[in-house]
């Protein structure tokens, strides 16, 4: 079915840009979140979804109508929504007697459900209940996880990863230090998770780093972990896979098609006169020469002079008039 979509050639540039934005890329877009209400959604759940939407703007979609599906039984409609709106994170809220004030937080991989964690909301204080000034929407929050529970069980670890994914916002390389405005604090204690959001007040301290004071600003939730639907280990590993181009590159190492690895070494310039080759006693520097620091020419002469009268070939001389001479032109004998 995917192939069918791709065969459809876009007729306008705008359509082409739209399709290009949605196709898989090396470095991905910011994940969008969709917030959906279930068949029976209480006012608490609706308000929670609205608050989270306010936190996640503009990277979120709030569905206004109720959708009668059960995420844990049938994920088809969630996957369809995700494909249509190109959202890979979702939050599905509903309410029934057995599971009051239920919230299902999840994420998708390749438009199929990867992880889903169901939490129950025990206590909720909304954004509008706390009367103070809020921070502008679209600011990147700071995330803090407290409590050792977050590393003990696999469920909690995945929940932590899911919450980071959900709330982290766009990845930036620079951040305006005075613009760090709010912080989301998650505490795991006695099987519950306390989610609080505070606004940051930077006070003067004597030194460069300011003193922090917090003011409760936003939604505060007390969550209880209920069911989970986690992806299998190999699917999770597949989703974590980083493309080769983004991996930190190792310099001076190359591979060829047969699987051999080649390395490149850079050496400093060597003093060839000090290179230790085979020992030739005749070429050994005499103590006098070593002291005086005789040059190579002097040493050569010392070796060759005893052979006086012998014919010695001169080194090949360059004669501009000569063309393609095979050997030396003249022979010299040392005197």
């Amino acid at each position: 079915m995917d192939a069918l979509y791709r065969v459809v050639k876009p007729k306008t540039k705008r359509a082409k840009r739209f399709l290009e934005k949605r196709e898989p890329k090396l470095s991905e877009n910011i994940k969008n979140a969709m917030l959906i209400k279930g068949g029976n959604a209480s006012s608490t759940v609706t308000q929670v979804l609205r608050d989270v939407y306010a936190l996640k703007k503009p990277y979120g979609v709030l569905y206004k109508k109720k959708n009668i599906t059960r995420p844990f039984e049938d994920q088809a409609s969630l996957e369809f929504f995700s494909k249509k709106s190109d959202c890979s994170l979702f939050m599905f809220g509903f309410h029934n007697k057995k599971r009051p004030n239920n919230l299902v937080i999840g994420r998708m991989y390749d438009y199929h459900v990867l992880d889903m964690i169901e939490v129950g909301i025990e206590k909720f204080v909304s954004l509008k209940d706390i009367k103070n000034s809020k921070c502008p929407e679209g600011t990147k929050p700071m995330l803090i996880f407290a409590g050792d529970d977050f590393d003990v069980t696999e469920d909690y670890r995945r929940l932590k990863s899911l919450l980071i994914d959900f709330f982290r916002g766009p990845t930036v390389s620079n951040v305006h230090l005075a613009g760090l405005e709010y912080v989301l604090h998650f505490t795991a204690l006695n099987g519950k998770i306390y989610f609080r959001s505070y606004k940051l007040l930077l006070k003067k301290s004597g030194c460069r780093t300011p003193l922090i004071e917090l003011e409760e600003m936003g939604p505060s939730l007390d969550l209880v972990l209920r069911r989970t639907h986690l992806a299998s280990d190999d699917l999770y590993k597949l989703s974590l896979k980083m493309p080769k181009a983004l991996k930190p590159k190792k310099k001076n190492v190359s591979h060829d098609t047969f699987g051999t690895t080649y390395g490149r070494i850079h050496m400093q310039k060597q003093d060839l006169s000090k290179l230790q080759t085979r020992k030739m006693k005749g070429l050994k520097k005499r103590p006098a020469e070593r002291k005086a620091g005789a040059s190579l020419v002097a040493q050569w002469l010392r070796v060759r002079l005893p052979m006086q009268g012998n014919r010695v070939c001169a080194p090949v001389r360059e004669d501009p008039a000569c063309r393609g001479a095979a050997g030396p032109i003249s022979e010299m004998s040392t005197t």
Partner: protein
Amino acid sequence: MEGQSVEELLAKAERDEAEKLQRITVHKELELEFDLGNLLASDRNPPTGLRHAGPTQEAELRALARDNTQLLINQLWQLPTDRVEEALVARLPEPTTRLPREKPVPRPRPLTRWQQFARLKGIRPKKKTNLVWDEGTGQWRRRWGYQRARDDTKEWLIEVPGNADPMEDQFAKRIQAKKERVAKNELNRLRNLARAHKMQLPSAAGMHPTGHQSKEELGRAMLVAKVSTASVGRFQERLPKEKAPRGSGKKRKFQPLFGDFAAEKKSQLEMLRIMNSKKPQLDVTRATNKQMREEDQEEAAKRRKMSQKGKRKGGRQGPGGKRKGGPPSQGGKRKGGLGGKMNSGRPGLSGKRKGGQHQGGKRRK
């Protein structure tokens, strides 16, 4: 006296500094883990203070949050900063937490036929201007597309070439040629696309040499090539030190010797029960296949008798068509009376047919 006061001043300054630092330092048993690329901090300390505080949790939570935030801010303020338009901006490092991607890694697209050819010949794309001067209209027009500069099909006068039929419509000929070019282009595009999708199958890799194959792919291709002879690789010579390929046969999975005792007991007891029962156990698929074969043979015998008597009804074709799996085009060609016969056949029963039956069916025609 002055020396003393200077010393006192220095000591006082130091004390002040220490005090100020104290205000922003937080003492924790375990250091926090920071991921500054994501503005993230993880506190591993067990929240003992909170456990004791029962109803007054909010204040405790807030104090804990304040401490953790202070530590995170301390870390952030130590990053290298730039000054961008009177604002102090910190350069964040790369995020270290590995989070799953939302879509799979894009696979490299195979080159199209043109790209392969261009790479082979060393042809580079030439930079061309967007607009071309059009003599006829005296305007700058685009090179291709709507209202292009030299549009073949829009000429008002075409000279009939010397060797062409004088009655031929040259205008229609040009329009036809353009349509054919467009169709050919579309066909090539679809073929490139089909090749791109086929390339996604990893098992077919190595069969089409590209020059950029891995050791495993080359090995696999070599093995397949070896087996692709008339005697299925039996008389292929091996290199002096080459080892015989292992594991290229059909894989059969056997249960381990000391595996699941409960499952083994269950299967053995089931087998005993079946052997002990008086009623024969019915394998539905095999039974239906047998039944169908018998019926076909009966009909074949009947038909031979009928054809000998010289009667030939159209209905004979029916069962043969159904046996072939009822391809829709053939079904369409059948006469109306066959539709009923096909339905009266075995709806919903597939069963594997032996090749002999196919032959039989064909022979009957």
